[in-house]
């Protein structure tokens, strides 16, 4: 059999070059494949949604990095989340969160893998998805939100520029709003509770309440029928905002970081 040497040599050449690059730049060009996950493992994995709890998840690598904008990630179908590139599977990330399409912030990238923040308990859970497998889209998000609990303020930033600052209410001493780098997981046109027409649940949960009503203790952003909340720690964890603040908050993309200090 004749080998077409003109076709073979470039392939060999490319391979040699790739190996040399690999040897010189360490991990950055090494392909890390996802761990195999059989149907039994898949059935056992917890769902990465607000009702889920994930064990073995890495923690947000930079939970105090402030209100940062960045890339957001949307799985088009349920995706497996891993503890690290090439690591064990820890959860299944569905394509939908409480009816909204899933958008999560990307906090790190490496070698065809992206580290994302999860909407599950415990707070500040992160995990890795394999980008080289496809089945997702990403987008640039210029927005970020900063909540200062001591000052009772919420501020929205667009590309680093403040576009609004409001006086808000926070969780009570018994049920404080948790601090950390949360994000908006969904936009809910609330059909049963009447205190706010739209509720923006966050990825964080109360540290003092395991459940609340029929929910898992999810902390959210929403308004309130009267001004009693302004400048007060009176909620059971949620950040209560004036109606005109909510009107701006509903415009920011899902996956927007809400930095709570």
């Amino acid at each position, binding site marked *: 059999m004749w080998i077409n040497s003109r076709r073979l040599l470039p392939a060999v050449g490319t391979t040699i070059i790739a190996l040399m690059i690999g040897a010189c730049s360490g991990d950055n060009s090494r392909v890390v494949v996802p761990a195999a996950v059989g149907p039994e493992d898949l059935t056992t994995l917890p769902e990465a949604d607000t009702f889920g709890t994930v064990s073995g998840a890495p923690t947000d690598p930079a939970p105090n990095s402030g209100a940062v904008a960045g890339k957001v990630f949307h799985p088009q179908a*349920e995706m497996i989340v891993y503890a690290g590139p090439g690591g064990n599977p820890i959860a299944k990330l569905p394509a939908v969160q409480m009816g*909204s399409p899933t958008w999560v912030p990307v906090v790190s990238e490496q070698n065809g893998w992206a580290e994302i923040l999860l909407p599950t308990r415990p707070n500040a859970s992160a995990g890795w998805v394999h980008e080289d497998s496809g089945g997702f*889209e990403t987008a640039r998000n*210029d927005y970020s939100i900063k909540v200062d609990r001591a000052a009772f303020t919420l501020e929205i930033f667009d590309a680093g520029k403040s576009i609004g600052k409001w006086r808000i209410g926070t969780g009570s001493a018994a049920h404080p709003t948790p601090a950390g780098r949360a994000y908006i997981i969904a*936009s809910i046109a609330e*059909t049963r509770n009447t205190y706010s027409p739209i509720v923006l649940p966050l990825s964080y949960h109360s540290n003092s309440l395991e459940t609340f009503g*029929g929910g898992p203790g*999810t902390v959210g952003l929403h308004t309130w029928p009267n001004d009693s909340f302004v400048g007060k720690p009176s909620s059971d964890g*949620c950040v209560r905002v004036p109606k005109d603040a909510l009107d701006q908050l509903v415009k920011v993309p899902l996956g927007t970081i809400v930095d709570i200090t």
Partner: protein
Amino acid sequence: MSRKKAVAGGLGVLSAALVAGAVLTPAAGAAEVRPQSKATTSGGSGVDSAYAVSASGLLKVNPTPAVDDSDGYSEASLAELTVPTLAQLRVLTARAGSGQARASVADLSVGLGLGRPALTASAVEAQCGVKTSSSLAKAKLGTVPLDVQAPPNTAVAVPGLLSVVLNKQVTHQDGTVTVTAISINVDGIQKLDLATATCAPGGESGGPTSSSQPVSSPAPVGGKAPTPTPVRAHLDVTG
């Protein structure tokens, strides 16, 4: 043991539970149990539904937790549920909306009566909408392992009047489909369903759905993250 004796033994266990007050409802503080609504209008309202466990017969357990999408996307979970003499279940979840439904139970153990093998599994789940399917993880009837992904309506051969159906799928007159991960019938006097989901037709193929809310994101414009569209749903956040 003769069949008559085995049945009597089974009945004995179950009736003892009956004396102890066997019509069980979820513990206070558990997720609200909503009755299964019938699929009437084409509005998608209440058509998609799910519940993690349900039992009828000598021991009755209302569908728990149970949700449907009549108030938009809904989800519920329960850390654990013990039905004395019948079942111990952990991490029960149910969600329904956006043309989909899903239910799951983790770490379950079901006693099927005196002399009967116990059913155990580390997880079972059923889903419909994207695809109609169910699966079992480490499920066993006694020492006999059960298939992870059995074909629809797989009957497990068991001696006596015990009937176990895996991946039970029923198409109703209105075209909705109900899938149950494990459906058990003990002597015709005790039924137990684990992980049940019901969806309107059409969602599976990605074809026109019954006007349930679309999930697709608006395509990012110039790579910018899209402005969200609020979706009808109910979630109790911490006020």
